[in-house]
């Protein structure tokens, strides 16, 4: 495989970087090259954060081009649309968490937060295959809303299983190696919940 591109979009504090590193580790375990283009600024919470994840045999720099992402992991819907609009290719896969986090601009009324329906329709207009759900809710059911990122990863792994250059098991091994010991079990449970969800997802056909 020349390259496989994943765009991860979210808001500071949602665990965007951990996901990109887990995916990177899984790819390294398959002997592939990895580049992660991480954009994060000040330590502030709530800023827009996105990662270019590039794995394959022919990757050199950290950036993908417009319309080059094979998949988008959207941890927050508005951020998902912002990056998906720019990077997701026609026919690319979007896994979208529908739990909103307002921006200051929408809070103070200088901009309007688009409806989830409009966001989903926009992805359809872009020719994306889209899976959407309130993945934060699944994480809340486990007891830790912060596990949402790994739930999304599990869902993505279940849906994209046949197109990824690494296996679901590779991802789980990477989680076990990257996450602090006392959090491993919970993260694996979150991953499995996301994976199970994807297998039950009916609106969707690849």
């Amino acid at each position: 495989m020349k390259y496989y591109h994943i765009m991860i979009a979210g808001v500071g504090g949602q665990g965007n970087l951990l996901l990109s590193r887990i995916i990177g580790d899984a790819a390294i375990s398959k002997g592939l090259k990895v580049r992660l283009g991480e954009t994060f600024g000040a330590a502030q919470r709530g800023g827009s954060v996105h990662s270019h994840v590039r794995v394959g045999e022919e990757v050199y720099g950290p950036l993908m081009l417009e319309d080059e992402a094979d998949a988008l992991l959207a941890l927050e819907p508005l951020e998902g649309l912002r990056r998906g609009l720019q990077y997701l290719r026609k026919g690319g896969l979007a896994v979208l968490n529908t739990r909103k986090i307002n921006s200051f601009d929408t809070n103070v009324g200088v901009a309007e937060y688009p409806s989830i329906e409009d966001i989903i329709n926009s992805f359809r207009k872009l020719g994306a295959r889209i899976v959407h759900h309130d993945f934060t809710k699944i994480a809340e059911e486990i007891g830790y809303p912060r596990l949402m990122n790994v739930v999304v990863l599990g869902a993505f792994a279940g849906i994209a299983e046949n197109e990824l250059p690494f296996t679901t098991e590779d991802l789980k091994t990477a989680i076990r190696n990257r996450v602090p010991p006392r959090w491993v079990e919970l993260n694996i449970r979150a991953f499995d919940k996301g994976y199970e969800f994807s297998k039950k997802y009916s609106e969707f056909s690849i």
Partner: protein
Amino acid sequence: MLLKCGVVVVHIVGLDKPGSRFLLQGNEAVARGALEGGVQVAAGYPGTPSSEVIETLAEIAKDYGIYVEWSINEKVAFDVAVGAASVGARAIVTAKNAGVNWYMDMFATVVYGGLPGGLVVYAADDPGAFYSSTEQDTRPLAKSVGVLILEPADQGESKEMVRLGFDYSEKFELPVFVRSVTRISHSSGDVLYGEIRKERNKIFFNRHYGLPFRYNVYGPYRYKGETGPSAKHAWQLERLDEIREFVEELPFNQVEEGNADVGIIASGIGYSYVKDALVRLDCGIKPWVLKIGTPYPLPTRKISEFLRNLKKVLVIEEGDPFIEEQIKALSKDCCPDIKILGRGTGTIRSFGELGLSQVLKALADLTGSKSYELDDERRNVKAEIKKIVAPRSSMMCAGCPHLGTYWVLRFALHKIVNKYRDRFKGAWIVNGDIGCYEMGGYGLFAKEIEPQKEKATRRVSIDNPYEILDSNYIMGGGIGVAQGQYHAGYREGPIVAVAGDSTFFHACMPALLNATYNKAAVTFLVLDNSWTAMTGHQPAPTTGITATGSPSKVYGIEEIARALGVDDVWVTDPYDLKKAEEVLIGAMEKTVNENKTTLVIFKRECALQVVRRLTREGKIITHYLVDTDKCVGCRLCVQLGCPAVGWDKNSKKAFIDPTLCVSCSLCAQVCPVKAIKPSTERVVGVKEV
């Protein structure tokens, strides 16, 4: 980032697993290179995108016996590293582009005689100015000093260049400059681990080691008919000639064969973009590629050879046309007819980030191939969707103490100007500085402004914290600029400067002494939140710990300011708006009426750090809410600029986002009708600790 190894959790950078590949951020790769190279001393000052080198080395410092420090500023860090190398140790100093400017004096001087220990000088530039005041390219600075510059193309090469940098530095007895950029330093890649050097350089001091009076530029060293600094300069130039020979054979500079009369010379991240672009281009022809790993000195023989059979060469580099200009000068002798293109010729735009898409387009033009672009239909679909994508502006955090400080400052300025109307016909000046509070100049809601032609004082009115800073340049700049405004005779409003605690230590102390010594009537606000917050909460002298976590003295800015000659110093709490406003107005009146330098310290720990601590303790943070029956829709709370305070357009009432609110109480304090109160009786939040 931690990785488990058996049951012991160690930092991924510290794993002793030669031959394995690991995913490292560029700055972690630099730390790994330093470790593999047997570094003994590391010093730096936080600055994005360079900070993670010291942070990472601090984490493995104990395991490997490395001395690691956050210095007070980059100049001191550089001096510390020079001192270490002068007694034979291997040392690394790290800084962002702006920080390089800080240490230039020592950098330009230490090369007169050089050092026995390997000294690697790591600089992370920021093209595109993602995290910086400028896009400054530091390579010309290192060239002006006359040292070897290495420029990595990816994280793997960052590691290797730093590791080998120590060897090269010791071979030529001069510092080696490693220049990285944001897209390498703050990106990650797979890095092949090598052996960790177990051997440590011997620590010794011999004042005449290798050269008489080695460490004293004024020492009576005689060489080539000169004495003292000129003799040492002659010595340095000889080393530089040796380096010129050395880079000809260095594997970091290499040719990849092509089959046409066009070529590409690429260095650093530019080389990676070229490789990425060539994968995507359907080239009828294959251009020659010369990869440059040493932007200075260039391998001139290799380049002349490369140019000989080519008609056109495109130079791809991130930053200024630094290599391009050197090659143009070189080609005048060897091949005057060749066309050299790059950022200097406008083939690639000369400002902003280089980026892959620009490189792809330039290569497509060079090779006459088609670069894929979106069709009109796709563009139209995207343009339509773009209309609904709301912005997410960068701003101060919910509960940030600076929100309180700026609220108080805004009202104090208005009140002072009104009270002293007879004296102040015009406007105040607020001089900013570098840190989270620089957001006070981001102008989030600013309208398009036409430049004004009249040389006359104009008063502005501000209604949010994001427009409060009139000037902002560099670390420590505000307090100095304020003094110049005063001494030049500006009397049309109070003159104020703001800076954070880490910035105060970094650069403001000499400027403050200058203010009291030369009697500048300015008011200085120090926003003390106990951390170097903006770069990721590195400890500062106000924190009470060092880089490696060992306890240290907590330095009080109040005592230091008094020692620097400020007679009138106040410490106040930005979470107590009424009191803080009284204090600030008192200070400004003292400045205005008695022509004195005054200083007010707004002291509150960074809300993010407090929230993290409370969360770690398992506490659930409570929030405030708006009683919509009482809310009169005056929007004062919205003007606070807190991301948790919102405005409902339909009901014309304020609301508080419970997921963001950290119970600082600021909005409740500014509400004139007491419509904002805690959601629960027992408040858990940043104010209660």
